[in-house]
């Protein structure tokens, strides 16, 4: 009886180890950032302060094409007559995601210095302003035309300490019954400070900054 129990324990341990270290796309116990952290860092998942970027990830876990309406607010100094005033400049991006495999996510790098980042053209009305447009069919060549639904998630505010330079901001849309459009959005932050400082693979975001500086492009 004891031997049978010992054998069963070994089999279960081996199976769970395989399950967690197999590292497929979903449904594993351990988060990839944790695995990445424990194994010493392979690829950066957050840009890091030295790159001067924030990464905005838009993740579509629904069965529909979803266009995310991402707005970035930052302070700009404007000249009004002889006086300099500080105004809030908003930039709104439309980014498409699809329900198929690795096309279900897209990201955007924005320069550090933003004050709020959220979904919808007007970040003051997250409960009313359409934050995403839900399409009805998938395809690489199709333009997403769908109905707009409010994201119902507050924008992330740098001044409130929600995120800092170099962090990754994540907006994840998933199916949820009982809400308008049957889609709910959650926001997350992956702080750069939680990431390793050295990587065995390419240093993605610092490389991106260095390339941009060389060709003279902003972001």
């Amino acid at each position, binding site marked *: 009886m004891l031997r049978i129990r010992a054998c069963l324990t070994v089999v279960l341990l081996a199976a769970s180890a395989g399950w967690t270290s197999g590292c497929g796309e979903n449904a594993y116990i351990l988060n990839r950032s944790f695995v990445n952290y424990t194994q010493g860092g392979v690829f950066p998942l957050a840009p890091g302060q030295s790159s001067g970027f924030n*990464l905005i990830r838009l993740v579509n876990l629904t069965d529909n094409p979803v266009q995310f309406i991402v707005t970035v607010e930052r302070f700009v100094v404007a000249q009004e007559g002889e006086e300099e005033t500080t105004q809030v400049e908003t930039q709104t991006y439309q980014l498409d995601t699809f329900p198929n495999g690795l096309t279900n996510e897209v*990201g955007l790098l924005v320069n550090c210095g933003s004050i709020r980042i959220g979904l919808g053209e007007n970040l003051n009305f997250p409960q009313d302003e359409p934050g995403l447009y839900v399409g009805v069919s998938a395809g690489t060549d199709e333009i997403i035309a769908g109905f707009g639904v409010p994201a119902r998630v507050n924008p992330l505010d740098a001044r409130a300490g929600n995120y800092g330079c170099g962090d990754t901001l*994540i907006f994840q849309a998933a199916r949820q019954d009982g809400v308008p459009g049957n889609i709910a959005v959650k926001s997350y932050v992956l702080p750069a400070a939680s990431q390793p400082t050295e990587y065995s693979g390419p240093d*993605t975001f610092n*490389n991106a900054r260095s390339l941009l500086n060389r060709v003279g492009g902003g972001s």
Partner: protein
Amino acid sequence: MFQKPFLPRHLLFVGRALRAGVRSAVLVGLGLALAGCDALNPAFVEVMLPAERIPSQVQAADNPRGHVPIFFVSNARFDGALLQYMAAQGLDVSDANLRPRVRVQANVEFSDGSARVMEFLDGAQISQSATVVEGEAEVAVIPPDLNRPSLNNQVTQCDVVSVLVAPNAIEVYIPVFWGEFEQVDIQDVGIEIRLRELYPPQFYVLQLDEVDARGDTVTLRNIGVRDAAGPILDLTCGSVVLYSLEGTLQMSFVSGFPGYFTENEAAIAAFPGRFAVKTQVR
């Protein structure tokens, strides 16, 4: 023959209770340790715990293996004569770093067989809104892509198999009205220049040079075959891809108005300038 040692029943009970306690303590400790490091996949946690009981520090989005940022930068310039014309038309050309608006589509294929098109926008948002030709006012229709903020990068998750910018996927915005002119020989008057067709400001697809079977250039258009964007294959996860459009947006002028004569095939083929795409992967 092995015999189980005899123990009093109450000692057996205490032993079992101790083992169960230690096992529970180890499991709880492991759970707390993992939760403190955001180690648990939220999908897994949600299965195990009702939503209202999930501690906030455990909530996290699933992370991809890595990222591949793809950039497209407009590094092209306006020709000096065109800049002067634009300034005369009231367009703000004071920015010393003024670059033509460019719209580009890239096809991205992933390792799981899925694919998508990514569209990039970069460059100035200037456009002539109206002009007067032969006493009639012509109004431009401003496309939404001119007023959108520059979108010079998008980030994909790994693994990317290929990135391809097709030759006809690069469009440059011509910010002024231009015309097609013809020369008409009128008896007793001489040659008169007439406007045959007026084009409003618009995005214009750049064309590759035409080459013959030996690879020699037959017709010079906007981009040389060696200056086109080549496909990028088998990208290492974590790489950065950067395309930049170099060159000059240039227009000829007929009687002080941007345009060309209909019989000037070379000018039509080369309209609106010469460009090159530089591709870099790091």
